[in-house]
């Protein structure tokens, strides 16, 4: 039974409105921002012009570069540590289904705890330097990669494994062919989420414990009631995260070309 004809914007006339509409929306957004700033005062809502000026001055003094580097460094290191650990553990756990089942409630509890709630503990143990943030980011990334890796490992089709065994494949061949190929898309999905999260995780970690970095700059501005600084910092962080997301989107399409389009709802 064919689908009922819906009034989709398939007609040329309507379709043309879409890019125009988007541009109009963007313009309206900035206009509203500026107007809001004038109405509410620049201590409360600095306008787009003011914010850009601040960002520019940060670039000029080199502070933006310094802070960005710090934050990126924490994110990258945490990503590496947490990512590798989180990705490997499912493969190890797979070898003992009994252990997996027994650990389930503990893992569920650990998942639910917001990692930032552990931050003060990390500060207590490690101080407010780089290690704290790295551990914090690593904890976020670890759970993300573990969750995805686990989903991948659990989705391995036992019939494929049985078929391979019957055909005489050794254990490591099965691992390579079936386990790895089945899990890879899941790990990719995890990476895709983890990368921007590691960045925002570093920033948020710096709210609580830092003396440098983009997050530190934002929170510091807040404590000085410097709204312009806060907004400038937020804009920079947001832009960076969006750029990272966009870059990932492009790479994923190429790497997973062999898959039929998945409907995975990566939240």
């Amino acid at each position: 039974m064919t689908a009922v004809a819906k009034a989709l914007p398939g007609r040329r006339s309507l379709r043309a409105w879409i890019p125009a509409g988007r541009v109009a929306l963007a313009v309206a957004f900035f206009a509203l921002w500026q107007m809001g700033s004038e109405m509410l005062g620049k201590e409360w809502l600095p306008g787009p012009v003011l914010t850009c000026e601040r960002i520019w001055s940060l670039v000029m003094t080199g502070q933006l570069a310094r802070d960005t580097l710090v934050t990126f460094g924490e994110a990258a290191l945490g990503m590496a540590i947490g990512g590798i650990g989180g990705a490997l553990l499912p493969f190890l756990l797979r070898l003992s289904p009994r252990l997996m089942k027994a650990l389930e409630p503990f893992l569920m509890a650990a998942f639910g705890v917001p990692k930032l709630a552990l931050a003060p503990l990390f500060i207590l143990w490690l101080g407010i330097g780089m290690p704290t943030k790295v551990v914090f980011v690593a904890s976020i990334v670890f759970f993300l990669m573990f969750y995805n890796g686990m989903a991948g490992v659990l989705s391995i089709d036992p019939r494929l494994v049985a078929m391979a065994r019957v055909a005489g494949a050794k254990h490591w061949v099965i691992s390579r062919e079936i386990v790895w190929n089945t899990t890879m898309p899941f790990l990719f999905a995890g990476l895709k989420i983890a990368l921007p999260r590691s960045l925002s995780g570093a920033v948020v970690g710096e709210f609580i414990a830092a003396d440098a970095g983009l997050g530190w700059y934002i929170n510091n501005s807040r404590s000085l009631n410097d709204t312009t600084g806060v907004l400038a910092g937020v804009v920079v962080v947001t832009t960076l995260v969006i750029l990272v997301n966009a870059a990932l989107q492009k790479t994923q399409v190429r790497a997973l070309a062999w898959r039929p389009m998945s409907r995975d709802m990566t939240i």
Partner: protein
Amino acid sequence: MNAASPTLEVRSLAKRFPPRNGQAEAPWILADLDFSVATDEFLTMVGPSGAGKTTLLNIIAQVDAASGGEITFRGEAMNPVSGTLKPGWGCQIGYVTQDDNLLPWRTLIDNVTFPLRVQGRLDDAAMERVTTLMRTVNLVGFERYYPHELSGGMRKRASLIRTLAYDPPIILMDEPFGAVDAQTRTALQQDLLRLWNLGRKTIIFVTHDIGEAIALGDRCLVLSRSPAKVVAEHRITIKRPRDLSNVYKLEGFGDLYELVRKELL
């Protein structure tokens, strides 16, 4: 057809879908399709798979538009080519599809009464009719079950009586019994005839199974391959009520079967 005024008349119906990328022109699915159906007639249509039978029914039910031709329903022009679609033509054309399309989140009884409910016609008389229908097809006792808890045959029956419950004057059926096993199919066919006897109405029943077409219908049309058109018409003289376990042995069945089979080649 020599009926005074047929319920449904199809003239020169034609249909093709928009061309795909790289195609100069799309092939015609239906072309020059002519037939009519009389009131209270059980018309069966046989055609090879992929011949466009579903497309034809979609057009009649106003679910899809045609590329050419006319359709008249009870004297009223349906404008299948131009004009906006009116699915079901104001609840006058029922449509039993190949998939049962029961709403999985509703119980059996809610599914069966769904059309009556949205039409605002669920009164005591309607409920009585529903109960009778449920009894006829042996679904009594399963009212509160969800579709996934029912067998394929039961879901088919539910889909059937869902349409019969709101009593549209004409019902289209698209290979409704194709996806069940042979025994269930015979039982369903018997159920359908029993239901049809309860209240005669016009039915257009499309199938690829020659035996089914002959066993069920008053008249059988044979469709060609794409582009589909009516290539033959047979009046089926086997007396009603028909016993489906025996109809295959009756005089004339075998010859007609052979005839139709040759026409389909």
